[in-house]
């Protein structure tokens, strides 16, 4: 039977992840990256690979540790607590999930091995507008000879500025879902990448494709059937992102409770005021409830992936609401200091806002739930 608590392996993974990240990537490290204008630290990425994290979803045949989605989510959750910035979700979660479905293809197998070893990063070039909507893809992949020619614009491609390769979603037919997924190097002729200056200081790019050549070899899976490989990858990314946001919520909440226990006004600790106590208790409850949806999403993806869509949308929808509440309460309860750049709470607020939008916000996932439920 599905059990929503951590097993022994997962508890060890969380403990070792926390120990490592507290040392190697506390929030100060994020501030250093932001100040230096860098999206992530390649040395940290290499260390994460040495720990097996980049291969958490890569089969053992390709050198991964293959621990499953629940474990990947736990890693993302720990990263969220101290705002670790890396291509983990794009590469180790989404690209790995897409490619492992076609792992009998030697090229995909090789890519998976390089993801596990930390030698290859990916970005998913899906959206073309301001909201997540893969089914609205307009970019064309025109058949030319034995191959394709890709032309169009992708925007808000997370990790798109730094990724070595891109998984590109393009239209190959008129039917709504006649889409094909291409795996191409990010520096191929005809690709222009323009950095987007995001509020969370992380990597996001607008990418234009001007007659970019792709061969049949570059197709991931089958022509016109992108969604069969992409859907599991999207779900994996959405769940991991929801986990990151829940970790982020816990991180912001921890700072807030500490502040309530040390800040004095009117001669008393502000944590003695019932108005603040009850709000803190409500927020704690909210994080606990969302944590259950994250655990459930991981278990469903590992044990019953065909039916995991509801569990994943539930986790992402709730994580969006929780993260929003956690950072708003975080700033409000800190008062003026919460508004300063010198204090970390603003980083949590800005990351929470970006993470809400990426891969579908509350409204997107509420709509998915409504459709599944038949409303």
């Amino acid at each position: 039977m599905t059990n929503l608590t951590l097993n022994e392996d997962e508890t060890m993974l969380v403990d070792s992840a926390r120990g490592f990240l507290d040392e190697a990537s506390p929030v100060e490290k994020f501030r250093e990256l932001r100040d230096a204008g860098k999206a992530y630290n390649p040395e940290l990425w290499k260390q994460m690979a040495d720990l097996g994290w980049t291969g958490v979803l890569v089969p053992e045949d390709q050198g991964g540790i293959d621990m499953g989605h629940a474990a990947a989510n736990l890693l993302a959750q720990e990263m969220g607590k101290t705002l670790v910035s890396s291509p983990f979700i794009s590469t180790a979660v989404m690209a790995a999930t897409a490619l492992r479905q076609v792992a009998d293809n030697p090229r995909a197998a090789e890519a998976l091995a390089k993801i596990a070893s930390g030698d290859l990063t990916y970005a998913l070039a899906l959206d073309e507008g301001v909201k997540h909507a893969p089914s609205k893809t307009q970019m064309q992949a025109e058949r030319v000879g034995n191959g394709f020619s890709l032309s169009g614009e992708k925007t808000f491609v997370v990790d798109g500025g730094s990724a070595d390769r891109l998984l590109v979603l393009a239209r190959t037919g008129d039917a709504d879902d006649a889409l094909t997924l291409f795996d191409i190097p990010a520096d191929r002729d005809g690709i222009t990448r323009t950095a987007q200056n995001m509020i969370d200081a992380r990597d996001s790019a607008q990418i234009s494709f001007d007659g970019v050549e792709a061969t049949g070899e570059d197709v991931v899976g089958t022509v016109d059937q992108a969604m069969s490989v992409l859907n599991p990858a999207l779900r994996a990314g959405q769940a991991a992102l929801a986990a990151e946001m829940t970790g982020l919520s816990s991180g912001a909440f921890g700072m807030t409770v500490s502040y309530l226990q040390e800040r004095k006004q009117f001669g008393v600790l502000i944590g003695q005021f019932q108005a603040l106590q009850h709000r803190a208790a409500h927020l704690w409850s909210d994080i606990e409830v969302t944590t259950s949806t994250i655990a459930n999403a991981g278990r469903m993806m590992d044990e019953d992936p065909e039916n995991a869509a509801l569990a994943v949308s539930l986790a992402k929808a709730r994580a969006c609401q929780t993260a929003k509440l956690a950072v708003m309460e975080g700033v409000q309860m800190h008062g003026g200091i919460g508004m300063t750049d010198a204090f970390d709470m603003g980083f949590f607020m800005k990351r929470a806002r970006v993470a809400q939008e990426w891969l579908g916000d509350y409204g997107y996932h509420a709509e998915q739930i409504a459709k599944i439920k038949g409303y």
Partner: protein
Amino acid sequence: MPFDTTNPEKFRAEIRAWLAENCPAEMQDGDTTADSICWGGRNWTFQSDAQKQWLNVCAENGLTCPTWPQEYGGAGFDRDQEKVWLSELDRINARLPLQSFGIWMLGPALLHFGSHEQKLHYLPPITRGEIRWCQGYSEPGAGSDLASVQSKGEDKGDHWLVNGQKVWTSYADKADWIFALIRTDKDAPKHKGISFLLFDMQSGGVSTRPIKLISGASPFCETFFDDVKVPKDQIVGTENRGWDVAKYLLTHEREMISGGGSGRGAGRSLAKVLADAGHDLSEASLRTEAIACDIEEMSVALTIERYKDQAAGGKGVGDASAMLKYAGTELNKRKHELFMSAGGSEALQWDGATGSLPADWLRTKANSIEGGTSEVMLSIISKRVLGLPG
């Protein structure tokens, strides 16, 4: 014990086969409304032969209290086996065979604090639905501040002489026995002078008076004790340490009110309310609220499951159960506001097509008061879980 508990797959198959053979078709109607509950007790009138048959066949096999030890009338199931049992009941839309305060509250407290003799004496009649219990906790001067109870028990050698008044005693007029918080040391600090006593509601000096509520129903009573003699062996735990038992029991009560006690509890479905009222979900605000409530309902249910898994793994949930109570009851109120809105004017009639919906809606308003108010729950969380200063 007709089930092979050593092999999970075989176990499920056997449960399924047993249900197919033993669960009457009438008990597979998915009815989880208050009127369909089998409470049991000396004065219980079964609503149908099927209800009686279903209770008896489950009781014979320990399935009214599946996780209790077999020697006390349970089936000795572990957490995973209980999940299989409940999921198989759900699969065929079966009603629970028996629900009671004995199962939800007194039983767990007795299993934890009672002597072997007390368990043998009190638990099996609960599992067979023969004795119905009520809870004597609140008093006119002890609501949220429960430890201020004033009902007193004087030591008379072989018995306590109990005098005082309880209030909000659920179904006291229908119950056979009561478990009550009685002050047995008036000089001790308020938490240290309370004993947890059990006595028969037919004892001389016990009387009850139902309280009519805004829903028109009278599920709660005032209960009066006038020189009630309670034998000395009818105490759970140690004299004057009844607060420990009370607190332990409250965590179970909170889980029950949150919707976790029965392990199911989805209750009324929005689709059915809409159908009964001839309404649909085309209105934007109604649809939005329906989805939001669905998200909350699934999330809270998963949290109840997660906490139960945690408890089964030996990690107590403790004060965090206050969160289940808070989240579950606030959600239940919100859902019933949605149901009333979906039902429109049809749901404004006491006897309309939506049945007991208006009474149920009013009843939910007590959910966030009984068993500790939402505000008390938040205070428990802030002080005992978060460690904020008092």
